[in-house]
């Protein structure tokens, strides 16, 4: 399995070998998705907040014009991916596992695709890293691998020294081949993006991790680089074991470094970016172009002509599937993402977002009724498959008995929901589903506890205030009495003493309010 120029691999525990029907879409080349008459931009961001719209209904916008977000580096800009008129800003179904609706900006494209003027830098090497990072923010660049983390934040880790940049081109989930298509057709852009990222990070080396079963992609990369390494960039084929493409696992495989469970890669001197993000970085810096489109794999036996499509952000999935000749008769499930970690969508009216890498349509036969779950026979197959080295059988047991202490002890929070355990379980227990639910319950409990703490603090503060007020009142009453006594004794009140009296009176409305 050795490939020339290969770097040494570091192993990790578990993982599974999946028969990967990548070829389904990989043979299509890179296709251009025609403009959809309607584009939809959900405002919900990765951190759970909604981006603020920068446009109003009826306003005409140009391609590349920011229409929402961008308040802070953590809130990426959203740009109009074509010119047209804002038709609505209202609640619509979101491309989100919850199946909930949320605010979206709806743009009716006018078909002219009129562009705002883009201006790139002449030589990125002359620019300061923070200036370039600011550019990435202005271009609305987020991780295109699926997580959608703002790139401008990721390339400026606070106070740690990063020596290695890893470009993730290892699509380990079956069916997905958008990175493969990108590398085959735009390898030079990816490599130029890598050089820019190295400059921003001031890192020494870049490892481009691709799967060893992507020969055309590695050919294109080596051709563009002029070999297996150069300029501090090295092409590193990794074993095609799911989930090698997981960020922390890929870092381990390529560098042998283990990112702490509660930590981020920068803590071990690594920043990891998807290859598509690197290409977007190139376009943003050199061409001045914001993130307006991405490559999406549309695949599965449920679509007529699978393929990789360069798709404008905001394109409704229905429009994209139409380009593939539509659904087959037996199309049953629509999945955003891969078959292992993607989520099923209720409707194809939701749009492609920046983090949507794959639209997978499965047929009845492939999804037909999950076989009923039986009791756990404690075979340990799940533990053998778990890349995080958790004990899913124990987690299952404790999530069913809802035992938060044990769940913490067995590190439920470290579960990456990769589904390996689920896939190998002979009893067909939907383990990941149980873990997700248990995580939800733990989070809800934490929130409740937080709320209870807050309520207790509020209560204590109120008690303290009451007490203080009562003391003040008593004090005022005492002074008043003294004053009256003195007055009745024929003494004249001094101004200071009347002031006291007035203060004493103002205390009472306050106490009523609380």
């Amino acid at each position, binding site marked *: 399995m050795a490939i020339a120029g290969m770097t040494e691999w570091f192993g990790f525990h578990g993982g599974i070998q999946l028969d990967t029907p990548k070829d389904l879409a990989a043979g299509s080349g890179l296709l251009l998705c025609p403009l959809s008459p309607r584009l939809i931009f959900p405002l919900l961001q990765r951190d759970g907040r909604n981006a603020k719209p920068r446009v109003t209904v009826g306003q005409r916008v140009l391609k590349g014009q920011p229409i929402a977000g961008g308040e802070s580096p953590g809130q990426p800009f959203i740009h109009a991916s074509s010119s047209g008129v804002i038709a609505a800003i209202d609640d619509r179904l979101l491309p989100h596992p919850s199946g909930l609706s949320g605010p979206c900006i709806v743009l009716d494209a006018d078909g002219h695709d009129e562009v705002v003027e883009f201006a790139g830098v002449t030589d990125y090497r002359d620019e300061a890293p923070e200036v370039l990072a600011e550019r990435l923010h202005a271009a609305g660049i987020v991780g295109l691998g699926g997580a959608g983390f703002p790139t401008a934040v990721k390339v400026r880790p606070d106070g740690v020294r990063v020596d290695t940049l890893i470009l993730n081109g290892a699509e380990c989930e079956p069916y997905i081949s958008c990175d493969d298509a990108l590398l085959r057709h735009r390898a030079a852009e990816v490599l130029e993006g890598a050089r820019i990222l190295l400059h921003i990070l001031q890192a020494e080396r870049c490892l481009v991790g691709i799967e060893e079963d992507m020969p055309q992609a590695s050919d294109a990369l080596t051709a563009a680089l002029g070999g297996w390494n150069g300029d501090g960039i090295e092409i590193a084929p990794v074993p095609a074991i799911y989930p090698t493409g997981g960020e922390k*696992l890929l870092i381990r495989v390529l560098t042998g470094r283990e990112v702490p469970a*509660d*930590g981020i890669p920068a803590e071990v001197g690594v920043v990891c970016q998807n290859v598509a993000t690197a290409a977007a970085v190139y376009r943003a810096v050199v061409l001045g172009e914001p993130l307006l489109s991405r490559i999406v794999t549309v695949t599965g036996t449920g679509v007529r002509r699978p393929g990789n499509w360069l798709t404008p952000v905001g394109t409704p999935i229905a429009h994209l599937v139409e380009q593939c000749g539509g659904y087959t008769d037996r199309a049953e499930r629509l999945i955003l993402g891969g*078959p292992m970690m993607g989520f099923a969508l209720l409707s194809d009216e939701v749009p492609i977002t920046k983090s949507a890498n794959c639209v997978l349509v499965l047929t009845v036969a492939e999804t037909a009724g999950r076989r009923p779950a*039986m009791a756990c026979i404690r075979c340990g197959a799940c533990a*053998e498959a778990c890349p995080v080295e958790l004990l899913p059988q*124990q987690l299952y047991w404790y999530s069913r008995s809802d035992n938060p202490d044990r769940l913490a002890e067995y590190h439920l929070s470290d579960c990456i929901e990769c589904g390996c355990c689920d*896939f190998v379980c*002979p009893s067909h227990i939907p383990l990941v589903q149980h873990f*997700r639910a248990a995580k939800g319950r733990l989070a809800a409990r934490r929130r409740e506890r937080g709320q209870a703490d807050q309520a207790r603090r509020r209560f204590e503060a109120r008690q303290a205030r009451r007490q203080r007020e009562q003391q003040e009142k008593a004090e005022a009453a005492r002074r008043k009495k003294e004053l009256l006594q003195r007055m009745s004794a024929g003494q004249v009140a001094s101004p200071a003493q009347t002031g006291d009296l007035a203060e004493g009176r103002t205390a009472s409305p306050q106490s009523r309010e609380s």
Partner: protein
Amino acid sequence: MRFSTAPAPHIQPQASVRGLMLGVLAALVPGVAAQVWQFGAGVLIQCLLALIAALACEASMLWGRGRPLVPSLLDGSAALTAVLLAVSLPPVAPWWITVFGALFAITVGKHLYGGLGYNPFNPAMLGYAVLLISFPRTMTAWLPPTGVAAAQPGWAELLDWIFRLTPPIDGMTMATPLDTLKTQLGMGVALDQIRSSPLFGGLAGAGWQWVNLGYLLGGSWLLWRGAIAWQIPAAFLGTLFLAALIFFLAEPASFPTPLFHLFGGATMLGAFFIATDPVTASTTPRGRLIYGSLIGLLVFVIRSWGGYPDGVAFAVLLMNLAAPTLDHFTRPRPFGRQRR
């Protein structure tokens, strides 16, 4: 267009409990075949009896507990329990012994604890242990292996012995080599002299070596398929060998060779098929190593100094008790965490 939704992962798992159990049953074939070759068709009659009793009992327990019958009956776990119990019994054990053992294994060993997956003890070994304690004489009356006996009894004779209430005449049955060794050593007979009996040919006594080789073959196939974890059999056999070697070297006059232990009695059956029962064994890698080696050690101790001829059943049952604790203290270090 609207679609049905379901949580990820969206591809079907390949393995099934049924496939697992059927694989183990298939792996038993070489061992059982060797047993039939060496001890006659009585072995098959016992298997059949145990299967009927166990499946009938499983069905009625499921029905009584209001559980769906078909998935559990077809998962093969009751059948596996039945076969594991049956091959541990003397081939001429009366029918009620086998039936009682199977009923006990399924009812008490499995369903009273909540069914498959919840039982702390290996059901087959629980059934065996109860029979051994209750009917020690009948349970140790084995047939002489082929080659030692003039001829194996025919079907008619076997059926007669098994289904009559009267046991076969003493002259027809014989203790196992392990048993003989124990009683004779206890009587002060020298090991050399004991070994000169025709029962002690070859590696580990006539007949038994072939049976053990058969189970070793089937077990290796399970290992190769990845159906069982290597840690338990490796640690079991390794520890048993080591313990036996130490004592054999120290006192060859009263301790049999390590190979006698490895290929005698229920060693291979225990190492590959009984100690590896997923439900009742330890499930962590390090836990399995400890679990396996403690069973190996206990087997040696019980065989050498205990009151019963073989120790596999009791060793496994004792370690079943310790498995949850072992699991808890041998948790692996999760990715990105410091070792505790």
